[in-house]
């Protein structure tokens, strides 16, 4: 620092006397609200968790043991399993600041491939299932390629793919349903996700366990692996991620492919849930999955939120749906309340972001 003083220009010479203490950044903002806001910033899934617990408590108080029983609570899990799995896929895509409108269509096409391969061509069920999973992954690859390499907006790409995949589904299946009895008799493996496990009144299915396991696995991967960090980095600021050495195209393509694969698993679970293979099923999956993601606190702008929040978001919808039905309310009340939750969730998201400034 003495050198500066010698070089003549003066304003820096005072630095020689400056304190050598390293900078400290004490957080002087205190108070419960700020602490809470900060906690939410670090753990974005806290909000949906709190809402979930409150709504369970509320319906429990209103309905008593009719709602607050192992049977009813696990029924909610069964009812949300398909949306939960699809929403996990949707979360990955939304974390990259994208959106996948084709999730529902990919799910249905994959389930149709599994069914048709088994019954039309007589291919053994495990191979047909593999083909269905490959089909979903391939659809995801097309999405990812168009988004990453052709730089097309995800909304447009997946809007187009939604139509293409859904039409292919109808054309290929000839609108034919494969009956549940036939599946049970000839290819019970297709029903695997519907297999029930009874534990003292609580009824779990393989599909429910898969949903929970999938979310926990993805949560680990997103938090504790390099790929997971890259997913967030791409969603946060793609150009910055590219400049700091992330292979953004690869990350994007892998995310859309994984989304497709998860949707294909959802297709398999769908067969277990409804029993038959029906090309007209699952039409609402994309809008319901986006709803779960948003209520779960994942930002539509990408890069923020946690996949556990998505699971809570899906469960909140399930709790409201069952709770209001048991109360005998018009189903429209469910939609109305969910609409309010969506808007509230986005408002909370904006509020949490303010911690950064």
């Amino acid at each position, binding site marked *: 620092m003495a050198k500066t003083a010698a070089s003549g220009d003066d304003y820096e010479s005072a630095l020689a006397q400056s304190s050598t203490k390293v900078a400290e950044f004490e957080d002087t903002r205190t108070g419960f609200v700020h602490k809470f806001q900060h906690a939410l910033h670090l753990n974005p899934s806290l909000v949906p968790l709190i809402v979930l617990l409150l709504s369970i408590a509320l319906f429990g108080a209103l309905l008593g043991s009719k709602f607050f029983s192992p049977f009813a609570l696990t029924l909610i899990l069964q009812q949300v399993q398909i949306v939960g799995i699809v929403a996990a896929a949707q979360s990955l895509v939304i974390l990259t600041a994208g959106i996948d409108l084709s999730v529902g269509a990919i799910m249905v096409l994959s389930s149709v491939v599994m069914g048709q391969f088994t019954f039309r061509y007589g291919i053994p069920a495990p191979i047909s299932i593999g083909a269905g999973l490959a089909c979903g992954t391939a659809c995801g690859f097309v999405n990812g390629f168009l988004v990453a390499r052709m730089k097309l907006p995800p909304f447009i790409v997946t809007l187009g793919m939604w139509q293409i995949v859904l039409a292919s589904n109808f054309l290929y299946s000839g609108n034919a349903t494969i009956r549940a009895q036939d599946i049970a008799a000839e290819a019970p493996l297709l029903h695997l996700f519907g297999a029930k496990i009874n534990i003292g009144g609580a009824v779990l299915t393989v599909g429910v366990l898969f949903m929970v396991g999938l979310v926990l696995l993805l949560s680990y991967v997103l938090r504790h692996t390099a790929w997971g960090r890259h997913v967030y980095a791409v969603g946060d600021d793609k150009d910055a*991620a590219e*400049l700091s050495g992330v292979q953004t195209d690869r990350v994007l393509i892998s995310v859309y492919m994984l989304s497709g694969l998860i949707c294909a698993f959802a297709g398999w679970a769908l067969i277990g849930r409804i029993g038959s293979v029906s090309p007209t099923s699952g039409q609402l999956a994309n809008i319901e999955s986006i709803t779960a993601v948003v209520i779960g606190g994942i930002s539509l702008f990408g890069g923020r939120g946690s996949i556990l929040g998505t699971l809570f978001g899906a469960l909140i919808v399930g709790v409201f749906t069952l709770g209001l039905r048991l109360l005998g309310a018009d189903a429209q009340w469910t939609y109305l309340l969910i609409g309010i939750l969506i808007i509230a969730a986005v408002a909370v998201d904006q509020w949490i972001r303010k911690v950064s400034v």
Partner: protein
Amino acid sequence: MEQQQPILQGKNLVKRYGRVTALDHCDFELYPGEILAVIGDNGAGKSTLIKAVSGAVVPDAGEVFLEGKRVNFSSPLDAREHGIETVYQQLAMSPALSIADNMFMGRELRKPGIMGKWLRQLDRPAMEAFAREKLNELGLMTIQNIRQAVETLSGGQRQGVAVARAAAFGSKVIILDEPTAALGVKESRRVLELINDVKSRGQPIVLISHNMPHVFEIADRIHIHRLGKRLCVIRPQDYSMNDAVAFMTGAKEPPQEALAA
């Protein structure tokens, strides 16, 4: 120095953005062990030049050589794997991620053993310890901050993190595009000291800066950039700051011998 082989060299680089020619047959040389300052008006094409030699933009024409060998960087990662570390002007950081995650972006450390090999788990403690050490070297922040998201840092602190990242990982060439623009007097001084440290390790540095006193204090040579090309290269001891600004803005013709340099 002129007899030496440049460690990093650009020849006839051209980059057009639509009708704007950001680089117009531009040459560039960085010699081993030197601090090369690049100065020029805003929009002269300085950032585009360093992006072209560091893989962030692919030039429309021209060649880049690293240690005499022709290289074709197609991404910043490419250049980084060749030991060129760059702090870009628009600070490549992911705001929502932590300081440690950002410092190790694209070169994460994994846990030893099964956790790392099979579960591919990141070694956060090691990454955080390293990041903490590098930031302390730069005198930039205290320990408790290492896990905080980059978006909660001030502009100057962010720049400090970016500089620390480049200094920590650059093995052959370090390029700093206006690294002190958002920094206070004290932090700017630390960055200059850091640049001198890096130089004393024998590593060459490219520094883009508008701060003439800093440039004249620290640079071995000054590349003056004007209208998308190198106008001339001068030595700070041969010219005054006024001369440099006059060349840079076109107020004065550059000396003939500097044009050849």
